[in-house]
């Protein structure tokens, strides 16, 4: 990581034509205080993400992917800068609105799956609907339908401990889609999975993204993600290094081999 001045993001012409914007960050800076020192992890991130896009945030370990991701997801407040979701500045939201945002607008997928261990697959998927105020029986029907969609119709009553990693991540995906969110945020969704299972999970995410017009934002090191992403945002040392469209990336990957 060289100490070069921030290169302006070489964004492809933000072809805004007809596309609705769903996430916008403006000069997001995040600093951590480590005793005396201040560690600046995000050094001014400005980007726009459109409805229905599949975005991968790529970059070396420690470059700030998760930090950016947490700022977008309303999980962590940036030191300065703004994050807009659906044109609402999320720093202005109160606790109830933030909870609503997390419940209805955003679906989270974690590297460690994060299923509630005491609940069955069905109950895990029902949980966000229950938090959203849906009745038990409606939630149950809808959860069963989504689990069927991710190929787990025979595992409804299994606890997470009785499921493989790939199956657990499928449950987590079903849970993230439970309240028909506008955005799916996935931080290293394939980080704990083997190559093949990872591929299937990515494929599933891509299909759900296309089917439901959901925006998927995924932070990852996983080059398998490149193939399915509409755009790849490369982060290096807290800056946007470049933003690439899929067709351009294919050439790059080809050159790498």
């Amino acid at each position, binding site marked *: 990581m060289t100490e070069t001045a921030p290169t302006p993001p070489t964004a492809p012409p933000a072809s805004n034509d007809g596309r609705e914007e769903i996430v916008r960050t403006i000069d997001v800076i995040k600093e951590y205080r480590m005793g005396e020192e201040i560690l600046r992890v995000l050094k001014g991130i400005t980007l726009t993400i459109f409805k229905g896009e599949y975005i991968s945030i790529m970059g070396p370990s420690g470059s700030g992917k998760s930090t950016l991701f947490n700022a977008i997801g309303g999980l962590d407040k940036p030191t300065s800068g703004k994050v807009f*979701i659906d044109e609402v500045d999320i720093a202005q939201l109160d606790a109830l609105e933030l909870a609503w945002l997390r419940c209805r607008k955003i679906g989270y997928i974690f590297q460690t799956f994060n299923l509630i261990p005491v609940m069955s697959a069905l109950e895990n998927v029902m949980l966000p609907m229950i938090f959203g105020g849906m009745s038990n029986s409606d939630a149950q029907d809808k959860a069963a339908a989504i689990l069927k969609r991710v190929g787990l119709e025979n595992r409804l009553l299994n606890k997470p401990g009785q499921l493989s990693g790939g199956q657990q991540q499928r449950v987590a995906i079903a849970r993230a889609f439970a309240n028909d969110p506008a955005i799916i945020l996935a931080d290293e969704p394939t980080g704990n999975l083997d190559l093949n299972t990872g591929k299937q999970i990515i494929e599933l995410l891509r299909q759900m993204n296309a089917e439901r017009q959901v925006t998927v934002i995924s932070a990852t090191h996983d080059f398998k993600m490149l193939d399915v992403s509409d755009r790849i945002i490369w982060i290096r040392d807290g800056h946007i290094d470049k933003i690439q469209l899929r067709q351009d990336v294919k050439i790059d990957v080809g050159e790498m081999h």
Partner: protein
Amino acid sequence: MPPAIQKQIRLPLSKAIEIALRSLRVRLARSILTLITIVMAIAFLTYIWTTRAIEPAAKAALLQAQGIIVAPDSSGASRTVWLITLSLLVCMVGISNAMLMSVMERFREIGTMKCLGALDSFILKLFFLESLFLGAAGTLVGVALGLAISILLLSRNYGHAAWSNIHGSTLILIAAGSSIIGLAITAAAAMYPAWKAARMQPIAAMRVDV
């Protein structure tokens, strides 16, 4: 068109009860351990109260039947009060500790629930209820055990003299007193851990370390 962002609804208490009961059931071994602490403390309290309420009269009655008249003595009263207080305190610390451990262990689960839309107040209720249910169950068993042991011992030692001095109303009073104390100490013990859980941030869901 509805506003872009709305307010999250508050769930009815029944939902928190449902989930709290399930958490207890699944973590049965841990739950039972905490339960035993409460059972022992409350059984001890009930035993002491019952014995102290009945024994002097039973002893007097027994001696009177043998032609000896004595004044009922109440020596060692302050020592027992001290013992009871100590046992209740130990019990409270035990419950608090067990709950706190459970909260710290479940950081990812709590963070995840927050990511899924759980409100602080819901998490607070969840953990508070978990302790309260343990407290209620432990108290119930403790009272029953305390009464049974004290009555058994009294009737062994004093026979008929004990039985004629056991009054239902006294026992009910003791049971009620023990129950209130049992619930009160669990509620007090649960406050800090439940608050701690409620304050946990959604970002805890992302933590990978243990």
